[in-house]
Structures are given as structure tokens and as C-alpha cells.
């Protein structure tokens, strides 16, 4: 079980990023900052229609514009973007990509959403490329469209794919994804009360500040791709597969990138389009997406509808949970479309039927904890409701029902009770919460909400190389990119600790597939634990070499590599968290303000306290945005998106955010690099639920739809 952590030399100390100076002087070179001799600029033309067949596309006038070097469309560039649509939403599997039938091309016909790419132009400057787009003439045959997942499953709904609108699974079968545990009927039979509620959640863009872009450069048969990617190794493999190349003929480089939050995994269509334009113009091509391109080319968290039925006994024991869910995937199945949360509960009788559905909105992609925050909002809203209806403190209700280790399913350690208890104290839960929801006289009503989570911190394969020269300079090669969390620094710190040298003696080489070994990619919150473990193992190897042969002399270097695949012997390895939030709801103006926010996390041993803290703070604030503001609204009559961009989506500003108090409960469970666990995604998982529950506690009105905008709030007050 949990051991209090022992202090280390480097790990656990606030450490500035190894590339901090470049980041504050403008010297950090992001993809779009690069320039190659003879480089062309490229732009993409997108469908203005939600669903249409291209009858004819005429690029002649665009091609004649002086400065235009190439125009490509579905007619002359038919390339499958393998990662753009995959059966069952199962990425990282060549076998599944091979059998995928509903494929996404870089240019599709029919076009299936506003923003589906239809053509691209490379020209000597970006203005000319833009002008050329306007000269492309397209004759569209408009097709009927559907925007909402449930409507898309109606018998008479427009068909987005010949097989129907229910997404195909990994076996190319159109069937809901069903997970059953125990005996649901018995569970409801044992219940003394049954609660039902329907929730829906919005369509949230990752909205990373750096729009997608790609610089492609061919030298002979070898492609060098500079691109903001969360995984250079995955991106390289995807590019090679899609272009019919061997992996070693693709080099992917990413030294700095302006965020991703899950949506720059795999390769992007921008990468493929740039590569193809570069091939055909025989010149390096910089493809730039506008902010609108980025918004509509690939979106983020899928919108969902969640219908819950929960059976409980009068004492608050949950006996049955049923979820029937629908996720709007847009017209291509890029990712799973999951709705998580049921697994947080110990209740043995659980059923989840999930239908990922095609719609003519833009494609849903992964956004930070892809399946969790919207699902946790749903399940923890109905559980909060049940607790208050039964006259229970939601914390007590949670202690009664949350999943705990059992003899059959042990954990490497378990800290949820401790996290919740710490939050109750740090936040002042009993004093801040209204025992009767909505009892504040108002009109500005205060209330407090709570939610909890656990999230995988599993181990897995990744690689690292470490070397030392005669001057005792250590160089660490890791195939990570730094999306923002500080992976270069974290990897350096793990190496320094393992080596027993100061961080200043370790140089970290990353972000280049020609120089670095495979790394798992900056997704799934895996870098620290998986690549970090490889660093630890590589250092062990190096130390053994040093022990055997002594330190290198002269021009010699010693090199060690490791590709461990550690296991956790059938145990569950989870990180844990509990969030407590106080809100102020102006019930006459419909304004919600966050007054106090306390986030308690157990993420194992913390490598760099500062960057870990700011991962949580940032994730929480993104979660508040998801709770209160962000959604891609569509006009039902035309199928046009109305709220693209930061202004329309009301992203939180400096003035909208409170100080987020973060407390880490540090433990070392004996697994992972020095006991480190997941951080990056965990903070967002429970934030929307906590905010929504606080709004309920303040107002006595249960908000069942995210985002909780003013019109919905005032509608509930009326």
C-alpha cells in the first residue's frame, strides 16, 4: 500500500524547463516559423455544405493564376487518411486500419460536413494560394443532412454512409458498444427507488493556440515532415502507411508545438496534403490552416446524449446502473466516442449501451481524457441528485458507493478515500455546502459541489537511449515532443535522478525521429510513466556498463538503450482525484462565477511539482470552460456551424478564472518511474461535474445540459 515518498535530489524539486529561455525570448521555433529555400505556401478549400456530392470540379482558372504551382482535388489525389477514420475508432492498429471500410480520404466525395476538405493549392505565397481557392469552381449536388445523433438513427434519416449511420465497430459490424456487468434486472429488483435522467453535452474543440500546419520536404524518396504532432513515432508510421513508404523513409520533426490536448495524435490530413503537394511541385510546401480550418477540419470532444437509470436502496446503496448513450462522431470515426464514468462505482450490476453515430457535423476527435469529463458529468450529476433526494451528503454517498479494491481486483495502491477526505478539509466542504440545495436566499446564490475520479496509470512499452562521454556529459534521446506539459524537462529530471547527476549535466534530445527512438506519444498521459520508465531502464544499463568498463575516456562514449514493457501483475493502477468547487450564481442575470476551487490529486510521485501543478490548473480551467461556455453550435436549417473561433466559443480569459488550489497527495506504489503516475488528463475529468453539482447546490435546479449557458440557467429559474 501507499508509502510516504522519500525526498530525492532532483525529482520532487521545482525545476525550470530545460528550454525555458527559448520559450520566453521568441527563439523557440514552431513549425510555422520554419522556412526552407524555395518553399511554397499551401491552403485548403473546404465544403460550404453539410452533405453534398461533387458533380464537377473545375480547377483550371485557379491553376492559371500566376504563382500557383499545384491544385489537387479528390480527382487527382486520392489518398486515404488512415488515422482519419478507423473501424471502432481504434487507433494505433494497422490491422484495424487495414479492414476499415468507411474510410476518410484527404479529399472526400461526397463531402459530409461543412469543412470537409475538397481541394488544396500550393503557390509562391499564401495570398496567391488563397486567391486561387476562390477561383475553383465546384458544382455540388446537395444532399439531405442530419446533425443530431439520435435523429441520425431514425429509419428515414439521411444516410451518411451506405451501411447506415451507426458507426461500424472493429469487426465492421453496426451494433452499439455494450458492456454488461452482473445482473441488471436483479439490481433494479433489489432497488427501493429508481431514478432516471437524461443529460446531454456539447461539442468542444481542443482549440490549441497553434493552428495545424505542416512543412513537407522530399529529398529523393525520403520525406521530412515538420509538423506539430503529439507523437513523432506514430505520425511517422501513419505517414509511411498512408503514402506507401517504409517507416525509415519518413522523418518527422517537432521541437516546439503550440498545444494539442489530444487532437494532434497520429498524422493529420494537413501532413498528407503537404507531402503530396511537395511531391508534385518538387519543392518544400508549408501548408497552413486558418483558425476556421483548424476548427472545422477536426474538432474535439464528441457531443453526447446520456440516458441514465439508477436503482438505490433507501440507505443510499446503489444496486443497478444503466446508461444508454449516443455520441455524435461527425461523418468519420476517428476515435472511440466513449462515455466513461460507470466504472467509478462499485455497483455490481451495470449496463452501458453506447451508440457512436455518424452526423453531418464536423469530425469528433480526442480531447484530453476523451471519454471521461462528459460521462463523469452525467453519472455524477445523477448520483448527486440521488444523494440530495435521499437527504445524504454527496461525499457520504460516494464513500458508500465508489469502486474500491477487492480480492478479485487489487490495485497497486488506493487513495480515493484519502483524496476526498483531504478535499473535505482543505475546502471546508461542510461549511460551504448547502445541506438543502438552493436554500441560499439569493438572488446571488452560493453553493458547493464535489466530484471524484480515478483514471488509468497503466504501464506500457516505450524506448530511451542514454549515452555518456569522457567529460561526463550525458545525453538522453527520447522520442517525445513537448506539447506543453514539459516532457523534455521531466525526462531529463528522471535521467538525472537515476544517474545521480545534476540536470545541468544531462542534455535531452527529442522531437526528431531520425535522432530518437520510439516513444509512445504525448497522449493518454503516458509519457512520464512509459517513456520515463524506459529512461530509468536505459540508465540502469548504462550504469552497468560503467560499472563493468569504467567511465569512457578520450573519444569513447558509452551508449545504453532500453525498451521495457513493464507489467502490473493483474492489478489496477490508477491515479485518483477529488475536486471541490464553490460557485456564485446570479439567478437574475444567469451568471455563474467560480469562487473557490480545490483540486486534490494522487498522481503517485510528482516529478516536477510546478509543471504538475500547472497541468492540473490548466485542465481544471478547460473543464470549467466545458461546463459553462464551450460548444460548437449548428444552425439546424442549414447545417452551418455558427460558433467557430475563440470569440464565439467564449473561451475563458484571464478575468474569468479563479486561482485553482492544487494539492498532491504523494505516494510511491513501487511501479512506474520512481512511482510516478498519470497527471495530464486527470484534472479535466471531474471539473465539469463538480461545477454542475455546485450550480445545483446553489440554485436547487439540476442542469442537465452542457454547457450551462445563461439561457439554460435562466430557463430553469423561470
Amino acid at each position: 500500500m501507499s508509502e510516504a515518498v522519500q525526498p530525492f535530489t532532483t525529482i520532487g524539486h521545482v525545476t525550470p524547463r530545460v528550454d525555458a529561455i527559448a520559450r520566453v525570448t521568441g527563439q523557440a521555433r514552431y513549425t510555422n516559423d520554419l522556412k526552407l529555400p524555395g518553399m511554397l505556401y499551401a491552403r485548403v478549400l473546404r465544403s460550404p455544405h453539410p452533405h453534398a456530392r461533387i458533380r464537377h470540379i473545375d480547377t483550371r482558372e485557379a491553376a492559371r493564376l500566376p504563382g500557383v504551382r499545384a491544385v489537387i482535388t479528390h480527382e487527382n489525389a486520392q489518398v486515404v487518411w488512415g488515422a482519419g477514420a478507423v473501424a471502432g475508432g481504434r487507433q494505433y492498429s494497422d490491422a484495424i486500419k487495414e479492414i476499415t471500410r468507411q474510410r476518410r480520404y484527404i479529399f472526400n466525395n461526397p463531402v459530409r460536413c461543412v469543412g470537409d476538405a475538397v481541394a488544396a493549392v500550393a503557390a509562391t505565397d499564401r495570398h496567391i494560394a488563397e486567391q486561387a481557392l476562390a477561383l475553383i469552381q465546384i458544382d455540388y449536388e446537395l444532399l439531405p443532412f442530419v446533425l443530431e445523433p439520435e435523429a441520425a438513427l431514425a429509419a428515414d434519416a439521411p444516410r451518411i454512409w451506405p451501411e447506415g449511420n451507426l458507426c461500424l465497430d472493429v469487426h465492421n459490424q453496426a451494433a452499439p458498444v455494450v458492456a454488461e456487468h452482473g445482473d441488471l434486472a436483479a439490481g433494479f429488483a433489489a432497488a427501493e427507488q429508481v431514478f432516471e435522467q437524461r443529460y446531454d453535452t456539447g461539442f468542444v474543440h481542443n482549440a490549441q493556440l497553434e493552428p495545424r500546419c505542416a512543412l513537407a520536404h522530399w529529398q529523393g524518396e525520403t520525406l521530412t515532415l515538420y509538423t506539430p504532432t503529439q507523437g513523432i513515432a506514430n505520425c511517422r508510421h501513419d505517414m509511411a502507411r498512408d503514402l506507401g513508404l517504409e517507416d525509415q523513409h519518413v522523418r518527422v520533426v517537432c521541437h516546439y508545438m503550440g498545444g494539442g490536448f489530444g487532437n494532434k495524435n497520429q498524422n493529420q490530413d494537413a501532413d498528407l496534403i503537404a507531402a503530396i503537394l511537395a511531391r508534385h511541385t518538387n519543392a518544400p510546401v508549408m501548408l497552413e490552416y486558418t483558425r476556421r480550418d483548424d476548427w472545422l477540419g477536426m474538432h474535439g470532444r464528441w457531443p453526447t446524449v446520456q440516458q441514465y437509470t439508477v436503482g438505490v436502496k433507501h440507505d443510499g446503496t446503489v444496486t443497478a446502473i444503466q446508461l444508454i448513450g449516443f455520441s455524435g462522431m461527425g461523418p468519420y470515426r476517428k476515435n472511440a466516442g466513449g462515455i466513461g464514468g460507470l466504472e467509478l462505482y462499485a455497483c455490481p450490476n451495470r449496463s452501458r449501451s453506447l451508440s457512436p453515430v455518424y452526423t453531418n457535423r464536423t469530425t469528433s476527435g480526442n480531447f484530453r481524457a476523451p471519454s471521461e469529463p462528459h460521462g463523469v458529468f452525467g453519472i455524477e450529476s445523477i448520483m448527486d441528485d440521488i444523494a440530495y433526494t435521499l437527504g445524504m451528503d454527496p461525499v457520504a454517498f460516494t464513500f458508500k458507493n465508489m469502486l474500491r479494491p477487492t480480492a478479485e481486483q487489487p490495485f497497486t495502491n488506493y487513495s480515493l478515500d484519502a483524496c476526498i477526505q483531504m478535499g473535505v478539509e482543505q475546502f471546508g466542504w461542510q461549511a460551504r455546502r448547502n445541506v438543502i440545495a438552493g436554500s441560499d436566499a439569493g438572488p446571488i446564490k452560493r453553493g458547493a459541489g464535489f466530484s471524484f475520479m480515478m483514471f488509468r496509470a497503466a504501464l506500457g512499452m516505450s524506448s530511451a537511449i542514454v549515452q555518456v562521454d569522457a567529460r561526463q556529459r550525458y545525453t538522453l534521446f527520447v522520442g517525445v515532443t513537448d506539447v506543453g506539459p514539459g516532457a523534455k524537462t521531466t525526462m531529463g529530471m528522471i535521467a538525472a535522478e537515476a544517474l545521480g547527476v545534476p540536470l545541468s549535466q544531462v542534455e535531452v534530445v527529442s522531437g526528431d525521429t531520425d535522432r530518437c527512438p520510439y516513444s509512445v506519444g504525448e497522449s493518454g498521459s503516458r509519457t512520464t510513466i512509459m517513456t520515463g520508465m524506459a529512461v530509468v531502464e536505459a540508465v540502469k544499463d548504462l550504469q552497468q556498463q560503467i560499472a563493468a568498463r569504467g567511465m569512457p575516456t578520450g573519444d569513447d562514449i558509452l551508449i545504453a538503450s532500453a525498451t521495457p514493457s513493464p507489467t502490473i501483475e493483474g492489478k489496477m493502477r490508477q491515479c485518483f482525484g477529488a475536486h471541490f468547487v464553490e460557485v456564485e450564481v446570479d439567478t437574475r442575470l444567469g451568471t455563474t462565477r467560480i469562487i473557490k476551487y480545490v483540486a486534490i490529486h494522487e498522481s503517485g510521485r510528482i516529478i516536477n511539482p510546478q509543471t504538475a501543478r500547472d497541468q492540473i490548473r490548466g485542465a481544471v480551467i478547460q473543464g470549467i470552460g466545458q461546463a459553462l461556455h464551450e460548444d460548437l453550435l449548428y444552425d439546424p436549417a442549414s447545417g452551418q456551424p455558427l460558433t467557430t473561433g475563440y470569440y464565439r466559443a467564449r473561451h475563458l480569459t484571464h478575468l474569468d478564472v479563479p486561482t485553482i488550489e492544487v494539492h498532491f497527495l504523494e505516494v510511491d506504489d513501487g511501479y512506474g518511474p520512481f512511482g510516478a503516475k498519470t497527471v495530464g488528463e486527470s484534472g479535466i475529468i471531474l471539473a465539469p461535474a463538480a461545477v454542475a453539482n455546485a450550480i445545483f447546490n446553489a440554485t436547487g435546479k439540476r442542469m442537465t445540459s452542457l454547457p450551462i449557458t445563461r439561457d439554460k440557467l435562466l430557463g430553469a429559474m423561470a
Partner: protein
Amino acid sequence: MKALTNINARSLADAVAAASAAAARGQVFAFSGGGTDLLQQIKDGTNQADVLINLRTVREARTVSVSPTETWIGGLITLTELAEHAALSGPWAVLREAAASVGTPQIRNVATLAGNVTQRPWCWYYRNGFPCFKVGGSECFSVHGENQQHAIFGGGPSYSVHPSDLAPALVALDATFEVLGPGGLRRLSAAEFFVLPNQNPARENTLAATELLTGVRIPTPGAGVVSTYLKITDREAWTHAEVSVAVRLQMEDTRIRTASVVLGGVAPIPWRLTDVEQWLRGTALSAPVARQAGALAVAHAQPLAKNGHKVPMTSAAVERALLRLIPA
């Protein structure tokens, strides 16, 4: 961005002449004050200008001159200057606060009074390129669509709301609008300057394409005037008003002698609440009076399917704005 030609105007007259010349050549042109919104519209294609007439090079119309009876404010003064101007203290709060509530410091550092008052609507249909009334079409797509942000007063046939923060403040201060065109200078009351969609759904004001808003004249508020601007937004800053309220009260001891109450963000033009203004006359400002004024404010509201929330919001906003002006 599309190709365009920039013309640096040397004076207001020069700018108007450049506009007339461009019009005569059949070119699409636009005046550029701060240019922030204009460049967005050009990039989006909702403004097709081939010629930009740059007003930054104009030295006139950037000052404030105050006499005991009348104050003149140049149309090219920036919002930052307006928000910080030493001459505009005390009873001018409504104008200062309105200027400070616009956008962000970066926008206010270049944006002008004239540009803020004459900016086009931010309706998501218009800005997303729908062929609506605002571009000469014959439909308002909000009517049967997503109208959460649309008008509850004065709508029809177009329901987009006036986005300006300065406009309600200026109307509350009884400003006269000075307009320079090829035919010379015109002075227009607010009633003459702003135009409802039932008269011209394509426009929000009566400026001709070749005319410039060069300044405003305002009766200098005397002793006993108090004012404020309350703006309710969906996030704390960097957005337009869901509802805003500009209030100016001429007090006589604790009683209201005259009142101006003008709404932003809820009507196609700054929306003067004459009923409320008349009702407030002679009352002693108090919390119950503010509450009643708020109730009266929405007596004639006509919400659409999805903007009903703006009715209680407007009521509450009027009440809160008046409450701010109760002497401590």
C-alpha cells in the same frame, strides 16, 4: 488576404473625397479607423473592399473640447483615450465605462469612437456569410434559427442587435452625431442617425457610404448629473453585450429630475426606454424604485423562441444599473 489598395487620408475632407473618387470608379471601399473588425470582415469575405481609406493619418477629430454648455468629441479618438480622458470624469462615467468595456486593451488602443458606433452587427448568421438582410438579402435567418443572442425589442424583419457599447452611452447623453460627406457636414439626432430594420433592414444607421461620423456633440452634463454603464457579458471581457444599460440621471437632491435609460445588445439600435424615463421623473431613487423600473423596462419586450432569457436579464440589468447610482 485579397489584394487591396490602402489610401492614407490626410484630412477628413480628403478621406471623403477619396471615398467619392473610389465610388465613382465603381470600387468597393471602406473607411478604416482602428481596422480590427474591418480586417476580420475582409478576411472573412463579409466585406469586399478593394480600397481602404486609412484614417490613422488624419490628425483631426481626435480631441475633446468642453465648454460649459456643450462638449465635442472627435470621431477618431481611440477608446483608450476616451476611457482615460481627464475631461470626461464625474458625470461622464457612462461614456468612460462604456469605452472601457469594449474588447480588450489591444482593441481599444486602436479602435475609434466612430468605428465603435458604426460597426456592423455581430449576428452569427451575418458574420458567417449567410445572405441575410444585412448584405442586401431578404431573410433574417435567426427568426427560425438560433436566436439566443437576438433582439427582444424593435426587431423585424431583421433581428440582429446593435453591438456598440458607446452608442447607448451617447444616446443616454443626448448626443448629436456629426456626419461629413461630399455635400458637407450634417448634424443628426440619435433618432435621425440610427435606423430600425423596418425602415432599412440592411443598415443600422443613415450614413451614406461616402459619409464619415466625424464627431459627437453632447450637452455638457452639469451639477447633479450621475451616470453609469452596466454591461452583461457571457464571459468577463472581450465580447459584446448580452444586455447593457446606459443610464444618465439629472438629480435634484435625492429626486430624479430627468432620466435617460438606453439599452444595448437587445435591439437593432440603441433602445431608449422612454416609458421608464418618464416613470422615473420625480421619484426618489431607491431599491424599490429601481426594481419597478426594471419591471417596466421589459413590459414591451417581444422575445423570439430562444432569447426569452434576455427579458429577465434586461429587467435585472436596468435595476442593477439604477442601484449603482443610489448615493451611498
